[in-house]
């Protein structure tokens, strides 16, 4: 088993870090305290300035 990286926190930053590492070919362990990923961002209804919806 090759050694990977640990990402603590599954919010938008944690997910981004994990994806970047994984896309570069590394194994990533993503540990999230809550039951699912998304963090605070998933609670946000719309995002300025583009008024995108999260989801």
């Amino acid at each position, binding site marked *: *088993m*090759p*050694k*990977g*990286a*640990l*990402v*603590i*926190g*599954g*919010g*938008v*930053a*944690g*997910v*981004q*870090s*994990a*994806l*970047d*590492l*994984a*896309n*570069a*070919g*590394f*194994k*990533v*362990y*993503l*540990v*999230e*305290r*809550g*039951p*699912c*990923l*998304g*963090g*605070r*961002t*998933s*609670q*946000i*209804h*719309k*995002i*300025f*300035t*583009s*008024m*995108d919806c999260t*989801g």
Partner: protein
Amino acid sequence: MDVGRHPNIEIFANSEVVGVEGEAPDFKVKVRRKSTFVDWNKCTGCGECPTVCPVHIKDEFQLALSKRAAIYRQYPQAVPNKFLIEKKGSPPCRYSCPAGVNAQGYIALISQGKYQEALELERRDNPFPAVCGRVCTHPCESDCKRRDVDEPLAIAQLKRFISDHEQKTPPPSPELNKEKVAVVGAGPAGLSAAYFLARRGYRPTVFEATDHPGGLLYWAIPRFRLPEAALQRDLDYIESWGVEIKTNTALGKDFSIKDLQQEHKAVFLGLGAAKEKQMGIEGEDLQGVTMCVEFLNKAVHNPQTPVGKKVAVVGGGNSAIDAVRTALRLGAEQAFIVYRRSRQEMPANEEEIVEAEKEGITIHYLTNPTKILGKDGKVTGMECIKMKLGEPDASGRRRPIPIEGSEFTMDLDMVIMAIGQAADISFLAKEENFELTRWGTFAVDPDTLQTSIPGIFAGGDAVTGPATVIEAIAAGKEAAESIDRFIRGVDLKENRKKKDDRVKDEDIEIPEDIRAEKRTAMPMLDVDKAKNSYEEVAQGFSEEQAKKESNRCLSCAGCSECMECVKVCEPNAIVHDMTDEFVDLDVGSIIVTTGVDYLDPKEASEYGYKRFKNIYTSFEIERLMSEDGPSSGELPLGKELQEPLRFAFIQCVGSRNMRHDINYCSRICCMNTIKDSLVLKEHYPDARIVVFYIDIRAFGKGFEEFYNRSLEKGVEYVKGKPSKVIDDGQGNLIIHYEDEKGHSGKMTFDAVCLSSALIPSKGCGELAGVLDIEIDDDGFFKNSEPAIMPLESTKKGILVCGCATGPKDITDSIAEASGAAVKAACFLEGHELPIEEKEIEQIDVSGPPRVGVFVCHCGPNISKVVDVKGVVEYAKMLPDVVFAEDYTFACSETAQHQIQERIAEHRLNRVVVAACTPKTHEMSFQDSLTAVGLNPYLFDIANIRNQCSWVHQKEPVKATDKAKELVRMSVARVRKLAPLFMKELSVNRDVAIIGAGITGLRCGIDLLQRGFSVKVIEKLPVPGGLVSHLSSIYPSFRKGKDIMEKLTAEFTKAGGELLTSTELLDVTGYVGNFQVKVKREAKENEYTVGAIVLATGSALYDPKKCFGYGKFPNIVTNMELEQKILSGDIDNIRSVAFFQCVGSRGDDGNPGCSRYCCQAAIKEAIYLRERGIDVAILNRGVRVYSKGAERMYRKARELGVLFLPYEGEPAITGKGRAEAVTIPSSDIDADITIPVDLVVLSVGMVPAADSAHLSELFKVPRGPDKFFLERHSKFGPVETTVEGVFLCGCCQFPQDIGDSISQASAVASKVAALLSRDKITLAPITSTVIEEYCRGCGRCAEVCEFRAIELVEKEDGGFAARVNEALCKGCGTCVAACPTGAIDLKHFRSEQIEAQLEALFEG
């Protein structure tokens, strides 16, 4: 690819890092996977379970604004999309019950009207619901948490209700166990032991000495309290499990222990306490003195039992009350109780005492008999003594002490002694050598109830002395467990101790808006009628009463373990006894992204949060304004609006506030408020929206324009801090505030939003301890050096990013996260390249279509609504369909395997799966096809779940028709599909970075460390960019030049190639293979690179003639001031005025805030002020937001730096040099004139002069502000629309140094990911041109955002479009633009979509 499916990412949700040891790159990590009680390998996320869950607790995701079930997922799109159960421990009711009866569970089920289910749940722990519903001492009620609100729930009476509503069900049939077990005594202990053994499959025999089972329940409890029929129901139920009861068979008379041992594997003795205790006073042998049980026994079976005229019952237990009430019914003229303590200590149930009193019974408290008086051998009276209460005794009750000389006598003719019973088993001890206690009870192991003789167990009153029914039941239950273990040869003791798992009081959720509500009173028989009959007095709850009462339950434990979810879960995923799991991981590096929490605005009590209605936090507004939120996007004001909505935002609640010790700006709130104000304006166009603020900090890209948009929409801004918010009692919220000029005012609103400060995430300090890294003064994770090392923690190999280091918006968090990734990668051992796939023989698909259709039930999710078999039969009749069948879960491994077999068996060359959305399983089905050599693009999913069965639940017929139509459309489409093949491009692993400033070099170093070769191309002769001109950098105060020299050296040392004085000539090619042509020292060179990074920076605004620049020599830009500071040219200066926002936030080509200047000016001001120079910073709002900046701002003010607002161009006067500046002050309604020696213009950042040229060269578009445009303002901040071309730093938008550096590392991360592979695979869904139809008009090329289409000269001289598949993203907009139909999109070809349409309308 999304994070949930990435093969390289293992997600540990609901988990915590509990231990980290070692140093980079050898960290040993321990992770605790908290139990979810749902096996996530099995859970399909179908969503059936919460529909049956009876518990409703606050939904943290919706910020407790709404409720959810105890089994839940946070939101429908959650990743992982799995359910979990919230369990907080044992609810107090269950914990305090000796038998552990799940009261919360059956109460929850009653609230749902599931009475039979409730009864079944009850009976898992207690076979006597009818009995216990009436006579239990209910310790559960004593501990019921509802007591803290008003009164405990009527738990026993609810239990009785479900028993009264029993529906006879067929007898259960557990797997039979042939081992024989004997139970002696058919009282509650013996019967419970037999019952719980029967539930385990045994067929126990119960030997009872009397002629009726039930023990004291039958023999000594009066029928008006426990009707025979009720008892019989429980007895019948126990017998229905196969328990055999042999009456009139007495131990010691009809059989011996030895006899039992010969025939049975194990024995349970439930012998009770048959001997009644005497007081040992004079006169107890007189006629008319009787024992309580003996008396009740007679009276229960004979209403003609003789009774005295004046009857005293001695004792305070339930039996005493039973006896006295029975005496009354038998005809006693006067019946009363004599009890030696006070009412408070009385062990009888409160409701029984009340009923007795109602019936006219007197209770003489603190009275104890001393002598029974008699005449002629008959009772005539009783001498008693008055008692007082002393210190508590062993039972915890206060000890009664006789008051000397208080003796008195009472006349009576009957005395009933109800002072307790004792076990009578001395004969056994003698004959069988049982060990006894000094109280004459069985000595048993307290955990296993085994007596001194192995295989013989005992419980109930014969062990404990007289106790309650529920304790006897508990003993029977424990004994059954022991006996089962004994027979199976399992250790009797292991894991037996009762777990200390009572839910913690602080975890019990008492809703803030709970209303006090008395417990439902039990309907009682009219007292006059009751007194004269044996009819049951308590009448039982009606259905309505039971439901009402059950709804008072607080669901203390979260999940009530009612097991309803288990019943509906088709994949059998629910595991109620799951435990936490620990996983050890070896990792090379760690990234910490633990985010933020927000300050509870209750801390800022002056704003009335939670005290008044309609005061929200900004996060609550997010949820409330969301369509999938708790109020479906409307504000739940709870009142009719008479006029347009009045809504206020209060900024900086807690932030920038010494009182809350929050010495920083929360950075996101201003923009969030502006956004929310616009969302509100959409919902309530006429609303009056007022924002109370200190400074509007709109410093990011597009922020200023966004702020201006809100002004245009009529959002009002009041500079000033509200002092308080009060409610006028009519639902109007009145904000008291003081404005800029010091005027106080009041404004009235319907609702108020508080922009609460962001604070470090809970548990962040503990995590720092686990990781051995430091936290800063504000409680966030500390950087090893802020600004220059914004991603490094204080420990090597541990990176910190996003809000973990301080509040940040999404854009900055995302950039930091990528940056941290590239740094983390430096500690990892090599990377895994995708594994070469083995050759699989491809199925020839050139022949006519042979379609296989596979229809999924998705458990009940589809089949409950859609007639799946009908769809299969229908599919078989569709053209080219040669095979169709259905699966319970088509996505399961077995089913996919079967599909693969069907492909071979029926020579299928097209596959349709009718199931859920393609978003979930399309890829896994395609993989299945690929694995057997069928091209994965010859596949389609008919979405008959998400878009059919789930949304048409009430129309099964129509839904089935629609499912057939969807399958028909899919079949039509799949018949027209063609195989597609992935294309691969080779990748050059070199990188070209344009610009040798701080971002370019940082990015270069990061890439070099990852093993890529890097060329930095700089047009100027020296590297360093803007930063090298800075006198110092806050907060380290290192010289810009030093930093840049060090960075340049590091870059060169790491093997980077620095090309200064180099001109870019041309760029061609595409991702993986760009050709960059440059000219250096008159020599032209061409480099091939895989990726290009634009780090070209920005220029500074040239103030030209404005603000008197150029007119007076002592008016300088801030960069010129930096030079002055560097050269020490400030000696003769005594007074300096800064003008902020020169060339920013205006119409002069630069609409945005330049972000860096406030912080830079403050840094410079401090430097000057510390040298005794007077400094005034004339500003348009002070926008300091980055880490440490607020403290710096505070320091500047403390040092006496003046901050004054100004608008427009001020008057700068003087002769030959600037001598004074005059600004109109809004503060005092008068002009202010400041004498100056130096005027500093803080000039904004503008796009570099060559940005238009670079934009053309690299085909990277620019935004309206003329800075380069990123791929997505939030989620793609460093990518461009051109694949393989990235950007970072100020060429995108003004940034400060820390943010620029994070972006530089982020780019390195993206480039590294792109170039880590030897080849880039291109998705085959691209546009394609039929050249003969193409007229070369170029419209397709015009609409293509990705510049994937170019016009090439044809052989005949004309032009034709050509698609560069490396650039094409497969959107297909070019197809819509083509006037001749010469261009089409693979896999979504016009004929394929038209076939779908034709199929749809065929029916």
